[in-house]
């Protein structure tokens, strides 16, 4: 039997992906459009022995191309060979979502309309006459609740019969006006409101939540509290997971080491043994052990906030600030995502329609400290409070929390400043239009959220990171192994970089650490510590004491902190910036801009302190 191919289309936020996931389960993969940065998910499922391929198109408001996503969706529908389109719309927002349906009908494609979220619509007292709607549009109309799987089987049955159905020709111009006006008329004729009180109560509840999340006095405190709470959960949750993973990995590495050692006895080359174990395996497991746990906690939390409808409110509340710098309020969301991982943040910039504003968000995303740099920021702020306020003893948690908050504020300020800079220089131009839908609050589906965010975001990024970490492990190994005049290349690199480092308030070891942690920022501290162990005779189990013995003072800590926050993106992020912008020039800007920012800060701090004291 021939495999049927259907496309899934619809406005953003209509539960399209929920339906897609329900139908295809885990048999799906995300791929890029050829030559484009727009991702589409494809999945395969079998219904009554019929294999069906489903393509989940990006959520679009219309077929008039405003963004690359809409352009791609349109092209796919017009040129791709498909047996039919399933248009998903939200039962509560029928008149608005019928616009896309009517536009698609104009393309003369076989269409199936799936009215989703009917339980939500019923809660709002909205009743829809589906038979009449089907007659009005001349296409099959099927109500369903995708999250519970209600009505999905009937939908599948309709999919099987759709290709052989005759196309009913309905003249929509009878409804008068253009497409939006027709959509309104059709919707009015099929909807009846049952209970006005119900709607009012429901809307009143949503408005009360809105007043809390976007009110002039409450918006920013709730936002700050939520961000700090997510942070705290991420950091404390991740430290347990990390410790566990490290134990598992050290056992695993020991096991591999043992096997390879056995092979060496039977003629396996020794250098290959050390390259595989000390080079590749050690670096890869190190990166995974520190990178995976925070992401595994952060991304589900982020998706949860997204699912509940809170995140668009953040963009709404902060838009004025971004508008003032020529940027878009939705950038706030990509920055939040950047706190999890900058590569994910850069990819997330696709939610910004306007190309100019999208580029701004991509280029400045790295200014938010990702999970890879966060432990470093925590460590440095701890050391700073130790040095300045209470020498010799661990300082109060509250003080560190305030410092971390200040660091985040500084990163946000720097992002806004550089957006304004780009707006005045390289990305000059008129501020693009801004439209943002604030969706209804919904109870999140926790299980789905955790599963999807682990699968979609965490594993994807982890895969990329491992791909980068493995060759980096080889390079690090070579730097340690190859020596010239009794010194390894690593030592030479540190010595050569020393004068440059000194100029910026750091030293050669620190700069070498930053350079070599290009594959993953997590590598920085281990690299610095191993560097000092090679250069100086000081031995100490306490990291802080070791660093202080190697000449670190308050200014050094500040400089390293600044450079941790503002320097080149990690290799994965650089690659992602290149893929998203499709241009070497913008990738270069994305690397140089934060680096120069960091260097300026460090030079100012260092020479300022030299002149002052």
């Amino acid at each position, binding site marked *: 039997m021939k495999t049927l191919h259907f496309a899934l289309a619809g406005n953003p936020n209509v539960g399209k992906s929920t339906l897609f996931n329900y139908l295809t389960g885990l048999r799906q993969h995300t791929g890029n459009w050829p030559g484009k940065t727009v991702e589409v998910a494809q999945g395969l499922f079998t219904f009554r022995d019929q294999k069906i391929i489903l393509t989940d198109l990006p959520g679009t408001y219309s077929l008039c191309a405003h963004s690359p996503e809409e352009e791609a969706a349109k092209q796919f529908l017009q040129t791709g060979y498909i047996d039919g389109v399933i248009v998903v719309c939200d039962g509560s927002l029928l008149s608005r979502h019928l616009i896309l349906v009517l536009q698609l009908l104009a393309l003369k494609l076989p269409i199936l309309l799936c009215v989703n979220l009917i339980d939500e619509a019923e809660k709002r007292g909205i009743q829809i006459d589906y038979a009449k709607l089907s007659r009005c549009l001349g296409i099959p109309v099927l109500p369903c609740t995708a999250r519970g799987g209600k009505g999905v089987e009937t939908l599948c049955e309709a999919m099987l019969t759709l290709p052989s159905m005759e196309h009913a020709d309905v003249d929509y111009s009878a409804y008068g006006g253009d497409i939006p006006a027709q959509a309104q008329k059709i919707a009015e004729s099929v909807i009846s409101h049952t209970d006005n009180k119900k709607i009012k109560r429901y809307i009143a509840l949503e408005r009360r939540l809105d007043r809390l999340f*976007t*009110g002039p006095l409450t918006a920013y405190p709730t936002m700050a509290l939520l961000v700090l709470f997510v942070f705290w959960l991420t950091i404390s949750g991740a430290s347990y997971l990390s410790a566990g993973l490290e134990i598992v990995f050290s056992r695993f590495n020991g096991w591999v080491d043992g096997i390879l050692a056995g092979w060496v006895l039977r003629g396996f080359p020794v250098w290959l043994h050390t390259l595989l174990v000390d080079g590749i395996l050690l670096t890869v497991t190190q990166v995974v052990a520190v990178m995976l746990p925070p992401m595994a906690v952060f991304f589900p939390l982020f998706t949860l906030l997204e699912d509940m409808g809170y995140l668009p409110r953040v963009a709404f509340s902060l838009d004025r600030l971004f508008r003032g710098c020529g940027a878009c309020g939705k950038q706030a969301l990509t920055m939040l995502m950047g706190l999890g991982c900058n590569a994910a943040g850069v990819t997330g910039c696709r939610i910004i329609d306007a190309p100019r504003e999208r580029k701004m968000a991509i280029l400045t995303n790295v200014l938010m400290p990702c999970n890879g740099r966060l432990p470093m920021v925590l460590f440095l702020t701890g050391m700073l409070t130790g040095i300045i306020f209470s020498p010799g003893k661990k300082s109060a948690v509250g003080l560190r929390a305030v410092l971390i908050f200040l660091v985040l504020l500084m990163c946000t300020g720097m992002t806004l400043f550089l957006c304004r800079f780009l707006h005045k220089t390289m990305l000059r131009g008129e501020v693009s239009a801004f439209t943002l839908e604030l969706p209804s609050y919904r109870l999140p589906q926790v299980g789905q959220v955790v599963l999807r965010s682990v699968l979609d975001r965490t594993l994807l990024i982890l895969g990329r990171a491992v791909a980068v970490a493995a060759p980096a492990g080889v390079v690090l190994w070579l730097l340690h192994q190859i020596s010239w005049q009794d010194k390894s290349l690593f030592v030479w690199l540190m010595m050569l970089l020393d004068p440059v480092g000194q100029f910026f308030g750091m030293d050669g070891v620190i700069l070498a650490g930053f350079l070599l942690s290009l594959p993953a920022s997590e590598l920085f501290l281990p690299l610095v510590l191993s560097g000092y162990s090679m250069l100086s005779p000081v031995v100490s189990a306490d990291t802080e004491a070791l660093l202080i013995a190697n000449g670190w003072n308050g200014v050094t800590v500040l400089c390293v902190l600044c450079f941790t926050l503002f320097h080149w993106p990690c290799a994965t992020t650089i690659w992602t910036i290149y893929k998203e912008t499709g241009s070497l020039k913008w990738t270069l800007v994305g690397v140089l801009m934060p680096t120069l920012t960091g260097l300026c800060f460090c030079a100012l701090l260092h020479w300022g302190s030299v002149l002052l004291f």
Partner: protein
Amino acid sequence: MEQKIWKLQIGSWGKIKNVEDNGRGIGTRLHELGFVEGDMVMPALRSPFGDPIAYQIRGALIALRREDADLITVETIEPEDMGI
């Protein structure tokens, strides 16, 4: 009385008279979002700085900046005419 949409008070309804296009394609975008002549609209939510404002239209909340909302003219409606 005709006036710009952003001058409407929060919570009071208006009927859209006209949606201009300033040549940046925003006119079509507004159309697709449901800002169509004859539709009922209500500013529902002000952001902390007062701009943007979220408008209730066709059952959804759509936030617009003042400069974009400036393209929309509405006719104010007395509450007793609404019936809701």
